[in-house]
């Protein structure tokens, strides 16, 4: 173990040496949680990529996880789009959390196809700071389309998926399972292309 650390140190301090996970993500955004940053490509939420969040259930802080990065984006004048959230994103709570309401757009689509279509349109335009999309899509093609659209702009794309799809294959750059754990949010990074190896566990957030 000590040897591995020594090698890592040597690599870091030697100019002209780039490690794989550093070059993988073009740009990334601080998650606000250093423990989580450490696992992600480019040490943060990767921009222009598909990020999957898979909560075990609702009401475990699955949205609070994103508040730090959303606050940063809003401060920069970038907008945050909720597409087909399962409930009302409650404006007094958003305002309390430091998200100016004039930066929030809530899009309600009739079905999953239209929800993904909306996300693609917004991603392509590249002007939104972050897109939070709730979708039950299972087809690989649907997810790939989102991934491709995400690449065209410079927005963050968070896809909330049902827990039943935890073990299905996915083209996403990052996949994180979210579970409650003794009043904390437990985030398991199950896939992180260009980041650290999967299956590392994290406890990162006090929910209440």
């Amino acid at each position, binding site marked *: 173990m000590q040897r591995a650390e020594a090698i890592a140190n040597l690599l870091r301090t030697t100019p002209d040496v780039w490690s794989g996970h550093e070059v993988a993500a073009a740009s990334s955004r601080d998650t606000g949680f250093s423990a989580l940053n450490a696992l992600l490509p480019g040490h943060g939420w990767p921009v222009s990529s598909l990020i999957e969040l898979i909560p075990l259930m609702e009401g475990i802080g699955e949205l609070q996880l994103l508040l730090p990065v959303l606050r940063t984006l809003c401060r920069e004048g970038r907008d945050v789009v909720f597409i087909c959230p399962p409930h009302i994103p409650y404006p007094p709570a*958003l305002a309390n959390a430091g998200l100016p309401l004039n930066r929030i757009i809530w899009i309600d689509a009739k079905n999953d196809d239209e929800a993904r279509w909306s996300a693609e349109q917004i991603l392509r335009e590249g002007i939104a700071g972050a897109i939070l999309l709730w979708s039950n899509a299972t087809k690989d093609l649907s997810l790939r389309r989102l991934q491709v659209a995400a690449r065209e702009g410079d927005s963050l794309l968070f896809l909330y998926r049902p827990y039943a799809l935890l073990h299905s294959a996915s083209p996403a750059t990052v996949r994180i399972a979210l579970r409650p754990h003794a009043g904390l949010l437990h985030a398991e990074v199950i896939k992180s292309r260009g980041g650290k190896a999967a299956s590392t566990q994290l406890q990162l957030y006090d929910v*209440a």
Partner: protein
Amino acid sequence: MLWLSLHFSSLATELREPRDVGPAAVVDRHGSRRWIISCNDAARQARIHSHMDATSALVLMPTLKLIDRSRSQERRALQALASWSEQFSSFVTFDAQRWLLWIEIGASLHYFGGLDALMGKITQGIRELGYTFATGIAPTIEASALLTQHKDAQPVHQTKAIKLGISALPVHLLAISISTLDVFRDVGWQYIGEVLNAPRDQLARRFGPDITQYLQRLLGEAADPREPYRAPATYRRRLELSFAVDATEPLLFPLRRMLGELQGYLRGRDMALQDLQLTLVHEKNNAAASTTLQLHTTQSQRDAQALWLLLREMLERTALPAATVELIISVKQFVAPDIAQLDFFDDKAKREQSWSNLLDKLRARLGTNAVKHLGLKDDHLPEKAWCVIDAEKQNTDSAPVSAQRPLWLIQPKLIQSLPNLIGKPERIECNWWQDDMQRDYYIAETPEGSRWWLYRDVQSSQWYLHGLWG
């Protein structure tokens, strides 16, 4: 003055929408005689050409589709082209009979950066509208029209150079009566120069005053009496389709052209729009005579491409009750264009512009209410402390809430078994004369670990789930 003349030699076939796929020719008729006035590429490949007798053409190509000309359609197309051209000049005029459009460009040269730059803008714009054309430039209307017939004609800038510029052109191009041209041919005159050299008084005596007046206008010796075209104050463009169209997709191409024309009209007046009406007139013998789509944009708009994308979304979402035979675009009200649509807009304005274009597009497909902006309301009841607002009327200085609130609000749902309550309750009261409300709000945690926001209705003592700590 310097006139740019545009001759639309294939107008009759090119104004047909949807375009004919197979060989097709538009014919004019006089008595029992029919002759071709315009044909498409597929027909031209079979050596069919204008002026050809319809019967001979059918012998050459039995599958040729013959279409009667529609003078009203031709006129409407030229009117739309004239409206479009007003963005480049305050003096635009046309002759629907001869398929000619004139734009006075002498006064616009400096503003648009010289002749080449201006010509580039105009020719590219008209090509985008889907027409082929030939151009001629001269100081008089009639001379510029003649030059459109000469492939390599150089622009004539000086009035005294007109004669030289047109002398070598064949005499039949003169815009005078056929009977006069017949006599010229019998005399043996082949070139316009020969007519110009003939003594003027003798011509007048032989053919009447019309010919000498025409020659005076041609050479700039007398002013041309044409008035500038003035497009009406409200915009309405009607397009009869060349055949009934069932699907929406074939409507998109003519729609693009119509919006291109509209864009020119708006630019010419330095105006934009926020409301546009597209009417699809359906085939007769149908219960629904027409379908009307109302487009409303958040910001003032005049970009043809943006409008086209919006209408395309709306069309794709609309079930048409019957085949469409006619399209009508009408705009009744105009607004000032956004500064962002001028050329020097900054990044922020550009971004806002993109946002409103994007949201308009989403609304066009998902419905107007699908895109929501959020606001706060000063109300004690949590479900009434927020609202959906119009983006345009957005008010950002609402009173902040001090108490902790969950990120997810849900419809109050009666619950039977109570999870673990955490902390002290928050009493929310609402004393109205019509309903008295008292609720005690708690944070709770389910055995699975989900955090709820729930309340006990003080009067009924029943428990409701009202939110989730997402």
